[in-house]
């Protein structure tokens, strides 16, 4: 009489055993890769806005300074999404008939806010302060990327805690002169510039938890 198990069961059983052992390892590895991928960090996904506001045009072509609209960036934790009034400053003169801006005018005159969609969304227990970064030589581009090339703004940096820490540990990599803070095209002049500016602006970054979490 033949044996209980045919010969092929040997191979199968060994393969199964091997597989069972491999799965958790592979699973964890896959997870590690996922959390670093844009799927998890939300990078590189252009966000749709209530109106087709084009940074390429305003920043790139017109060369409007970031601070014209994001006015509080230098004195508040929040860069500030411009009040509709700011749009109207120009657009009551130019394109004041444009159908593209109908919604803006409508909201403005009915005194209702424009519900902009948040692009750079930090967790709510993270307290990021724009003013101190901007005043210590961290340029807009450093975190927000080349908005002058984005039809619809997207998040280009992972914005993970590790990413924050890396800069807080070696800020000199990312410092630039204050007069260049909003420049989208600035390239650092020399190797030691970062260190020099770090001295000059008395940048001393902190990695204590309460710097960001309160």
């Amino acid at each position, binding site marked *: 009489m033949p044996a*209980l198990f045919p010969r092929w069961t040997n191979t199968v059983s060994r393969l199964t055993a091997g597989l069972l052992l491999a799965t958790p390892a592979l699973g964890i590895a896959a997870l*590690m890769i996922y959390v670093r991928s844009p799927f998890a960090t939300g990078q590189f996904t252009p966000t749709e806005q209530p109106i087709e506001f084009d940074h390429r045009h305003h920043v790139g072509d017109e060369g409007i300074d970031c601070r014209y609209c994001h006015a509080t960036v230098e004195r508040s934790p929040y860069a500030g999404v411009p009040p509709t009034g700011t749009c109207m400053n120009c657009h009551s003169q130019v394109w004041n008939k444009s159908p593209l801006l109908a919604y803006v005018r409508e909201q403005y005159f009915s005194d209702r806010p424009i519900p902009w969609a948040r692009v750079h969304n930090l967790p709510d227990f993270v307290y990021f302060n724009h003013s101190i970064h901007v005043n210590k030589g961290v340029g807009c581009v450093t975190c927000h990327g080349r908005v002058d090339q984005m039809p619809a703004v997207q998040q280009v940096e992972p914005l*993970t*805690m*590790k990413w924050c820490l890396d800069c807080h540990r070696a800020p000199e990599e990312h410092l630039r002169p204050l007069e260049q803070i909003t420049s989208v095209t600035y390239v650092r002049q020399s190797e030691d510039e970062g260190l020099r500016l770090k001295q000059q602006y008395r940048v001393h970054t902190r990695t204590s938890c309460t710097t960001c979490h309160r």
Partner: protein
Amino acid sequence: MSPVHDPASDSDTHAAAAVAGAATAPAQVDLEGAPLIIGEHTSESLNKSLLDHVWRKAGPGWWALFLPSLAGSGLLLTCIVLLEWRGVGVWGNNQPVGWAFDIINFVWWIGIGHAGTLISAILLLFQQKWRTSINRFAEAMTLFAVLCAALYPTLHTGRPWFDYWLLPYPSTLGVGPNFKSPLVWDVFAISTYLTVSFLFWYVGLIPDLAALRDSSPTRRKRIVYGLLSLGWRGSGRHWHNYKIAYLLLAGLSTPLVVSVHTIVSFDFATGVIPGWHTTVFPPYFVAGAVFSGFAMVVTLAVPARKFLGLRHVITDRHLENMNKVILATGLIVAYGYLMEHFVAWYGGNEYEQHLFFSNRAAGPFHRVYFLMLFCNVVIPQLFWFKRARTSIAWMWIASILINVGMWCERFIIIVTSLQQDFLPSSWDAYSPTWVDWGMYIGTLGFFCTLFLLFLKFLPAVAVSEVKELNQELKH
């Protein structure tokens, strides 16, 4: 030769002893009177007597025990769901008493878990022949107890879904665990202990699974046990590696047992709270663990050997030996208590003195305290008398009382210490809720469920080892 002592190699001496013994009374060994195996047996008969219960249909007795246990597991599940839904607040834990039933039961179960490995490993290394018929049993108990224990630290956190933060993994947060925290040590100790005990248990099981495979009445059972036994053939080449592997696992487990409860004791010993901040904890926790573990083995072995008809292999001699161990470890525990109080008095630390002499002995839980002393210090003393050591009824009651006592010990250590520490303003009362009790009863049910399943479907004693022993004795 392998560095570890090979039991097979010196069987001659045993054989000699056996012969000597055989002269007076057949099938006896050692200087002790009581036999390790009662009656004349062949491998075949042993095989039959030890494995048949697997083939027999489960009797009403088994069901009568199994269904309540299953209900208990259900209760456990309910409580866990409630706990995760509402939060730790469903327990009685409060502001000064941050840990209560959760950690009490954790330590209690872990302690029970210790007997298994101890019996299997240490007794194997020490050539204690009497271990063979109870070790499987004890190992299973260990495994299930540690499973129950592991539940608590996992679920006791406020946000269990973040428990993985205790593990070192490449995180995008850039922050890792704090390896100075005894809780992280626990994670590694418990998981290691669980894995090693499982391997040890399973490796021991393989030959018996093969035996089950080959004595299965039906093809389906054959296939199941066949797969479980991984195609074990009992080949000389298998045994060649098997013996040494098993010995090495034993050799590893021995320090592991000691380390695990030492680390558990560090949870408290590294604290600053009076009643926790004590250097005597590690040895006295380990002793206490063995103490309660053996008690639990007795509690389980007494009925099991009756129902499964294992009296001929789990003899009174085995039980008596275990009672001796209980007595010995009980004395160490008693010494631990004594030292705590002595140091508190002699050290002249007012906080310690308050804790031991006012709070524990006269505080809100003094009844628990005296129950603990009675069960853990008084009860074992009766094992000085052979009558008590050998009376089934008595040892069973005693073993249960001891388990109660050890639970009380953990309660006293954790709750009373936290309840009244340094600033009287923060002192407060503690009372458990029904969920606390529910989870405790639930884990008991869960444990019994697993254990009954084990008794039903797996050999309760290490058959091949008993056969080997039997053949040695016959020489």
